């Protein structure tokens, strides 16, 4: 079996596991067993490495926000605030741990098991960040460009908030793993200093998570954001899957799924091909249209067969499958019209078979193997017997894997349809789509070359008809994919996350309208209806309008409230402190110390002092 492509969830799980192990190892310490010096310093170095990686994540998230106009930031959501506040907290944690700038990036050799696990978590998260960054590119002008269909989902608020929650949760885990070391008895100035640094950093890590927890309470994030986040694959072409047993259903499903993923990957590249590229060719368009027509038919067959299989024990699912079959049938007809249109035109470049066209052919092949009883089925075989329903899904538990294959295949067809539409639109604009003319002596200047041939650039009704057909095929394929997504969600097929990612991407594409709606918001009471805290109020009273400073002030106000809340929960509320209207924040000494160590502004510290005892 071919290993599935790594996902962000793999790295996330690995990091969580490493930190859980680090915490377990740490908790097995007794304070006296901590090796003085070694453990403390190694924890500090390993934690510094981890915090550096965590703050790189939040740095990525704040980069987008920093580019927004301040008017937008003032009227933005609790989650956007949390991003900025968490980043500030993580940056402060990093500063607290650093001895010198040069040391921040090097952990050196580690012999303490807990520190080793902290370091391993940092490495997992580094790889995970690389995975996410692999879905983006930077243009020469510095603009962030999407390199895959996942990129749009990654940038969505749901995935962003899911990522922030994960990052700060990992920070909290790391703080727990360092608790014993921070509380151990050490001797010597250097060790005590390292221990203090770890303690302060842990405080910041807890504050970072508290900020996110507050945002989560005010505006609960959709759980699908975290699901999509975990499912984001590495942005590379998956290896093809060749079944060892060509008659085993699970192997055939795997072949369909892998081929569909490959097709989607190359379809993205095809859709983004430059209009002058020699990779744009009518030969590829034709093969894609023909192959997707076959695939749509095979999906239609599979949906019907599966509907027969589940009709008795799940009539609702059978109805959904029947609807999906209808959509696949309609898509097949649209592909037929599309293929016919591509037969009536040509392009300046021909005979080029693109990777997208090759994968489309493979997809037709494997979906047919799954749909038909003939083990030697190929598209060249005559119409033959269908696979019996009991063979396609012997048990009810086998249904999701077939649904998964159908959904993946239909989504791949939708991506290929978009690729054809994009390429055809570009080729039309570049006068690269040609129609057969009456005279072979005509001369045309195409792409800077004078060509004598019996064709002329397509225009008027040919172009209108061609592009309309491409759009129709794209929409029909999209509807089939949506129907596939519904049955995937209903059956719990793994590909259901694709539908969720698609939905997030769609919402994200509507974001500019939402931005426009909030762009006019003016400075004033926060949009969540809460009053300004004392620090923020003070800054505003002093005439400070810098958005970043106001963010930080708000962050400190809320962090103070959270600490007080935590303290009163843990120790019992003997006297509920009043926060908000006062100009001084009651604050545990540890937190104030942490703020001071992090280099907080003196003007801010003047308003944050330890609360007097009861």
């Amino acid at each position, binding site marked *: 079996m071919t290993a599935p492509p790594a996902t962000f969830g793999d790295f996330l799980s690995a990091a969580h596991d490493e930190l859980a192990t680090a915490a377990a190892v740490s908790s097995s310490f007794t304070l006296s067993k901590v090796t003085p010096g070694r453990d403390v310093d190694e924890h500090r170095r390993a934690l510094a490495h981890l915090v550096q990686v965590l703050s790189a994540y939040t740095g990525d998230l704040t980069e987008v926000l920093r580019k927004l106009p301040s008017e937008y930031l003032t009227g933005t959501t609790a989650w956007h605030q949390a991003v900025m506040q968490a980043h500030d907290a993580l940056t402060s944690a990093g500063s607290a741990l650093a001895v010198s700038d040069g040391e921040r990036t090097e952990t050196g050799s580690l012999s303490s098991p807990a520190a080793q696990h902290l370091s391993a978590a940092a490495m997992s998260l580094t790889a995970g960040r690389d995975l996410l960054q692999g879905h983006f590119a930077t243009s020469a002008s510095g603009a962030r460009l999407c390199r895959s269909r996942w990129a749009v989902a990654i940038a969505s608020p749901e995935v962003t908030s899911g990522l922030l929650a994960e990052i700060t949760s990992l920070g909290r885990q790391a703080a727990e793993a360092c608790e014993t070391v921070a509380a151990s008895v050490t001797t010597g100035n250097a060790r005590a200093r390292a221990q203090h640094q770890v303690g302060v950093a842990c405080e910041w890590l807890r504050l970072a998570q508290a900020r996110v927890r507050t945002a989560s309470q005010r505006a609960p994030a959709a759980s699908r954001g975290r699901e999509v986040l975990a499912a984001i694959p590495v942005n590379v072409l998956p290896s093809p899957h060749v079944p060892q047993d060509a008659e085993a259903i699970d192997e055939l499903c795997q072949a369909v799924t892998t081929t569909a993923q490959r097709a989607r990957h190359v379809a993205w590249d095809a859709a983004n091909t430059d209009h002058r590229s020699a990779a744009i060719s009518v030969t590829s368009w*034709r093969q894609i249209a023909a192959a997707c027509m076959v695939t749509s038919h095979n999906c239609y067959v599979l949906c019907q067969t599966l509907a027969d299989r589940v009709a008795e024990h799940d009539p609702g699912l059978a109805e959904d499958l029947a609807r999906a079959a209808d959509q696949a049938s309609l898509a097949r007809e649209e592909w037929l019209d599309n*293929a016919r249109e591509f037969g*009536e035109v040509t392009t300046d470049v021909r005979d080029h078979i693109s990777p997208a066209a090759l994968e489309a052919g493979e997809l037709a092949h494997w979906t*047919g193997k799954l749909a038909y009883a003939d083990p030697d089925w190929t598209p060249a*075989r*005559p119409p033959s017997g269908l696979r019996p329903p009991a063979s396609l899904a012997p048990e009810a538990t086998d249904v999701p894997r077939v649904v998964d294959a159908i959904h993946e295949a239909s989504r791949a067809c939708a991506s290929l349809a978009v690729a054809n539409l994009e390429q055809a639109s570009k080729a039309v604009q570049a006068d690269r789509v040609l129609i057969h*003319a009456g*005279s*072979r002596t005509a001369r045309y200047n195409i792409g800077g070359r004078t060509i004598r*041939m019996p064709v002329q650039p397509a225009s008027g009704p040919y172009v209108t008809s061609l592009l309309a057909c491409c759009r129709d095929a794209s929409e029909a394929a999209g509807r089939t994919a949506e129907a596939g997504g519904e049955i995937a969600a209903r059956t719990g097929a793994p590909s259901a996350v694709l539908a969720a990612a698609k939905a997030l991407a769609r919402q994200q594409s509507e974001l500019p309208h939402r931005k426009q709606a909030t762009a006019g918001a003016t400075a004033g009471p926060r949009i969540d209806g809460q009053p300004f805290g004392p620090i923020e109020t003070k800054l505003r009273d002093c005439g400070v309008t810098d958005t970043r400073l106001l963010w930080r002030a708000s962050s400190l106000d809320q962090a103070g409230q959270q600490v007080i809340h935590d303290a009163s929960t843990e120790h019992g509320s003997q006297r509920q402190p009043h926060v908000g209207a006062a100009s001084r924040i009651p604050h545990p000494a540890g937190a104030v110390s942490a703020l001071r160590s992090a280099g907080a502004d003196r003007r801010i510290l003047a308003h944050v002092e330890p609360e007097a005892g009861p």
Partner: protein
Amino acid sequence: MTSVTDTQRRVDNASGLAKVLDAAYDAFEDMLTAIYGYHDSGGPFYPALIMAAASAANGRDAVAFAPSLLPPPSRTLQTAAVPAPDPPGWQDLGASIASLSSSLSTRLRDVAAAAETAEDRRACLDAARYAEEVHGLAAASLQ
């Protein structure tokens, strides 16, 4: 069907590069018309024919770019200009297309060998290759 049979006769009887190219162009066009006509008629779905249609269109394009192709009275695409003949069953259609594409490939390779210009030779060989693809798909479906 009648059109495909007539075209086969033209292909078999054509002599000389220009006439073979002319017959080949029409042969590929007729295959497309017959295949789409079959599917429009609501016959059982036949994947091989759909794939063959793509190859037939590629073959027609290859012929169209041959310098020696005669300028016919109306070489523009005959979109819906010719009424579709009665659709045959898939086996009959597969058999006639397999036969036509086989003849086409042979004739195109013959004239390619005698072609005077590289462009003509390349056009003939490319078109012959596509005719063989059509034949492979149509013939396999009959086994």
